[in-house]
């Protein structure tokens, strides 16, 4: 089955929507983002750091931020049990006043509250795969498939040695033929670059 096309309307040019000041303000870069998903210690931050203009930064979100829809102080007691999850990210300035953000996020389904946030408006996702802990990316694969978000599977070769064939990885994860599966080395800029190129090319191929 072919990937369904996105039903998002394509604007001829992304207008820069400045909120808060009706008067003319200097133009801001257009921002785009790519999600880097995968299990703990699979190399997400290394991947981001290998190509980012800035040292990867870390931010956190509290689990309860999104589980509570309240707009007042009503849910205080619920918040006692709040857990936070760290997220590392980097930024690449591209010609044409484009800023590409790379957001790394843990791959377990208990972090989905954060993914909803991350994938909104994202080009797609690079799922980093550790073949020794393949199960850690099941959730990510399911999530992106269910939401028809373009994603690629980048098998990280920690020591430059491929322990499993790409076909094995593909069949173990039961992804469709359209999903690119390839080896990468998160430490190397060229490999990271290629992974991003593969994802953007996939995203473009799926546009109407």
């Amino acid at each position, binding site marked *: 089955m072919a990937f369904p096309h*996105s039903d*998002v*309307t*394509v*604007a001829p*040019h*992304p*207008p*820069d*929507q*400045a*909120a*808060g*000041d009706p008067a003319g*303000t*200097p133009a*801001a*870069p257009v*921002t*785009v*983002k790519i999600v880097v998903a995968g299990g703990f210690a699979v190399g997400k931050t290394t991947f981001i750091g290998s*190509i980012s203009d800035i040292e990867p*930064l*870390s*931010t*956190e*979100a*509290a689990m*309860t931020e999104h589980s*509570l829809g*309240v707009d*007042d*102080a009503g*849910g205080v007691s619920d*918040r006692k049990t709040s857990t936070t999850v760290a*997220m590392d*990210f980097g*930024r*690449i300035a*591209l*010609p*044409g006043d*484009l*800023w*590409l*953000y790379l*957001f790394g996020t843990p791959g377990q389904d208990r972090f989905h509250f954060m993914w909803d*946030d*991350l994938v*909104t*408006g994202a*080009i*797609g996702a690079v799922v980093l795969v550790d073949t020794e802990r393949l199960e850690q990316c099941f959730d990510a694969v399911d999530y992106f498939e269910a939401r028809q978000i373009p994603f690629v599977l980048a098998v990280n070769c920690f020591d430059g040695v491929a322990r499993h064939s790409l076909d094995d990885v593909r069949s173990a994860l039961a992804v469709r033929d359209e999903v690119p599966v390839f080896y990468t080395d998160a430490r190397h800029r060229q490999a990271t*670059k290629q992974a*991003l*190129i593969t994802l*953007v090319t996939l*995203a*473009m191929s799926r*546009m109407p």
Partner: protein
Amino acid sequence: MTETPVPDEREPRRFDHDLYDEESVEEARVVRPYALTRGRTRPGRSDLPLEALVRVVAGATDPVGTAERRRILDLTREQILSVAELSAHLSLPLGVVRVLVGDLADEGLVVVHTGSPAAAPPAANLKVLESVLDGISAL
């Protein structure tokens, strides 16, 4: 608006101090457990994207002047920064920064560049993707 006296800026202060600032007490309506955001967990406007860029409005003077708001204004005076970067630099959770930035934008102290309307993010624009592809390829 009179200039708020600026306490010295060592380490960014933590939450509760601001509760006792005269200015914020004046505005207090309830006891505020999520003190920095006056109990709110969501910004008044729709959720700001993590990559939304924030820039201070030239000549903005903050009548509230809490340490965190001042940090946001100072940082975005130096350079335009995303909500995510502000969260990292302030060591505050994203949700808190979203509320603070939302407030500052509502008060006309910062401009938030959301890039495009939610209906058509840049990533849905083929031309933008082409530029991204070309840009990455040239790195």
